[in-house]
């Protein structure tokens, strides 16, 4: 029924449009006649009654008296009647007649297209975690040709979709974003349960981008919005910082490690560090070039009997503690969400009685990177040789929570530390922080030898090419050079005199050039080596 309406309405609209174009100056009564009839038909089809004369009168008023363009007048009158009879505009105008019915594969092929209206029949195969209040539902629908993401906006007023049910989606909008296609269901869309039950393409046959449920290794998880299964061991659990997060930490397998977040909505009740799990339907999210696994409602985890070996991904750095950042020392956390309190106030829960915690946020600068490092309570206690209680007592006695920070600064700043830990996007989560090992004398010796060698080469090439005595070489350098000269003299005994002569002046060297092979050799050595520096 609606289909008929659509086509009819569009036809009249189209004809009205052409009429309009032809007779821009004067509108004859026939045009009004036609429009009135169209409106009447439309209303009749939707169960509302209105006489043609009345419609005509309204149209005439708008067109002649108020000089409203005829098409706009028709629209306005139609809308007025629809409103009067309480008929949903969405229902009447669904599809606008231009809407083509498409298969999902066809829609997926429309990448780059935006705001294209289509009809599609699809089965709801996944419902996702919803992150935004303006979205009522989001997930995947599929048919026998493919799957596509959909977004059902809250403002659409549409009723929610049920998982595994097939619907006819009418007047949905195809949007492209970042090369991916999505269908939006908005206020103008119409969703009806479909008469047919669709067979959805098996997930294995989906295009690479939509591939789900494939077992992957951690190292392969390097694409945003990738759905995957994985077997991994939980390396570390972080302190929970948000109430919507059930667990967060680091997981890994033999190929690498990554961060993960298990949302409260996942229903996951227990994850323990050190245990291995089979995780199905995790989604990979990219942030600032780093990838993390998110476990949401679609996700299931299962503890494994076997233990997954984890590739050690420890980050090691030796650096000088150049700063202790704000938020170090004795801090208070919200008892509900563990967020750090600022002046006794939690960003989430307002004024709360915080619980004390001890931590250090230090910057270990190795001359190449400023490594921001977080050191947790137990490690801080060890380094300071004080327990959390000691520091609380100290702060209470001195009436100054900053005194702990001063202690930390005194302990750390300006000293070198060997830091080992896990590198996250910004911070190193320290696993061990030890005062740096004393300077490696062998390394210092090697560097000295290398530089001495470079100086030798440089001096020779300078001496030989300019014939002038170097001013830059220190005494020891000169000695070095003389020693070298002597050794060369030994090997080139016969050319000894010429070499010294040449050494005294540029012109001499040039005149003797051809006759002195040996000194030329010496020169060559100097030059080539000089080029290598």
């Amino acid at each position, binding site marked *: 029924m609606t289909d008929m309406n659509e086509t009819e309405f569009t036809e009249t609209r189209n004809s009205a449009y052409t009429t309009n174009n032809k007779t821009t100056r004067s509108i004859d009564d026939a045009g009004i006649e036609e429009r009135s009839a169209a409106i009447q038909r439309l209303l009749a089809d939707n169960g509302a009654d209105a006489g043609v004369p009345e419609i005509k009168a309204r149209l005439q008023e708008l067109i002649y008296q108020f000089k409203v363009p005829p098409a706009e007048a028709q629209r306005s009158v139609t809308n007025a009647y629809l409103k009067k009879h309480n008929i949903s505009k969405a229902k009447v105008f669904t599809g606008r007649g231009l809407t083509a019915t498409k298969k999902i594969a066809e829609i997926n092929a429309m990448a780059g297209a935006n705001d294209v209206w289509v009809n599609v029949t699809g089965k709801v195969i996944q419902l996702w975690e919803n992150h935004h209040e303006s979205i009522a539902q989001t997930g995947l629908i599929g048919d026998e040709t493919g799957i596509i993401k959909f977004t059902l906006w809250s403002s659409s007023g549409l009723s929610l979709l049920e998982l595994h049910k097939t619907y006819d989606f009418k007047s949905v909008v195809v949007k492209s974003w970042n090369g991916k296609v999505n269908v939006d269901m908005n206020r103008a869309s119409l969703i009806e349960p479909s008469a047919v039950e669709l067979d959805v393409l098996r997930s294995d046959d989906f295009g690479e981008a939509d591939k789900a449920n494939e077992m992957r290794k951690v190292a392969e998880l390097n694409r945003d919005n990738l759905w995957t299964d994985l077997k991994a061991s939980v390396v570390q659990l972080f302190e929970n910082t948000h109430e919507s997060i059930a667990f967060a930490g680091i997981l890994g397998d033999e190929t690498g490690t990554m961060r993960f977040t298990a949302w409260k909505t996942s229903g996951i009740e227990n994850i323990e560090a050190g245990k291995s799990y089979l995780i199905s339907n995790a989604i990979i999210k990219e942030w600032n070039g780093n990838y993390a696994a998110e476990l949401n409602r679609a996700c299931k985890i299962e503890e494994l009997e076997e233990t997954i070996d984890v590739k050690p991904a420890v980050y090691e750095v*030796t650096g*000088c503690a*150049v*700063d202790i950042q704000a938020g170090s020392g004795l801090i208070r956390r919200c008892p509900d969400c563990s967020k750090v309190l600022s002046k006794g106030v939690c960003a989430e829960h307002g004024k709360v009685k915080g619980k004390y915690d001890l931590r250090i946020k230090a*910057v270990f*600068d190795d*001359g*190449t*990177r*400023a490594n*921001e490092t977080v050191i947790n309570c137990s490690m801080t206690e060890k380094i300071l040789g004080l327990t959390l209680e000691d520091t609380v007592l100290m702060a209470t006695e001195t009436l100054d929570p900053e005194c702990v920070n001063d202690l930390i*600064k*005194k302990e750390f*700043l*300006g*000293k*070198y530390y060997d830091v080992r830990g896990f590198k996250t996007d910004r911070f190193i989560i320290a696993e061990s922080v030890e005062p*740096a090992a*004393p*300077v*490696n*004398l062998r*390394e*210092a010796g090697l*560097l*000295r030898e*290398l*530089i*001495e060698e*470079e*100086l030798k080469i*440089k*001096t020779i090439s*300078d001496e030989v090419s300019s014939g002038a005595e*170097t001013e*830059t*070489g*220190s005494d020891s*350098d000169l000695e070095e050079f003389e020693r070298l000269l002597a050794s060369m003299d030994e090997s080139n005994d016969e050319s000894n005199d010429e070499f010294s002569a040449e050494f005294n002046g540029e012109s001499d060297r040039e005149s003797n050039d051809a006759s002195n092979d040996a000194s030329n050799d010496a020169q060559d050595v100097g030059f080539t080596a000089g080029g290598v*520096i």
Partner: protein
Amino acid sequence: MPGYFREIAVRMFAKELKESTFMSREDEEQYAPQYVLSPTGAKANRVLISGVLTEAENIGLGTEYYKARISDPTGTFTIYAGQYQAEALRFLAEANTPSFVMIVGKVTAFKADDGKMLLSVRPEHIQTVTRKDRDIWILETAKKTHERITAFEQEGPTGENTETESAKNTESAPAHVCPDFTEYRSMILKALETVSA
């Protein structure tokens, strides 16, 4: 924090810092960081320096303003700490001389009467350290300086933080004349000799 990055503390011996030139601000913004360009091509805003604190004196009139000299094997650093470097000020007021210190700070400059730009360091943190940390600093600074020299000789001045226009400009200079780094190599050697067995 987009756009924010912490300036790396550049390792530099006193001789090299002394011979560095102050770069004009890249943009007109008041808070744009200021950099020095060192002879070996390091571009530094923050430096990590270490040595022996040889003297610290209050040169302020009325308010406390400390000037201190830090001596490393190649020369002397001058540091100034005023009321906005409260921690450093307190440290210098109570410091024993001579003692090993480690300083992280920003390079600043002021014009002397004869028009020469004098470079000094405004300490962010200053701390007494042991010989061990001083030695680590010497070796580290030696390595970094040597790396800069080799890089310079091979591909021209790099500047340690090369994001900025001026650094790029120097880099892309077609035929750069490679300076003679002999004196800086000797400087490194001199410093390394003090790392004791």
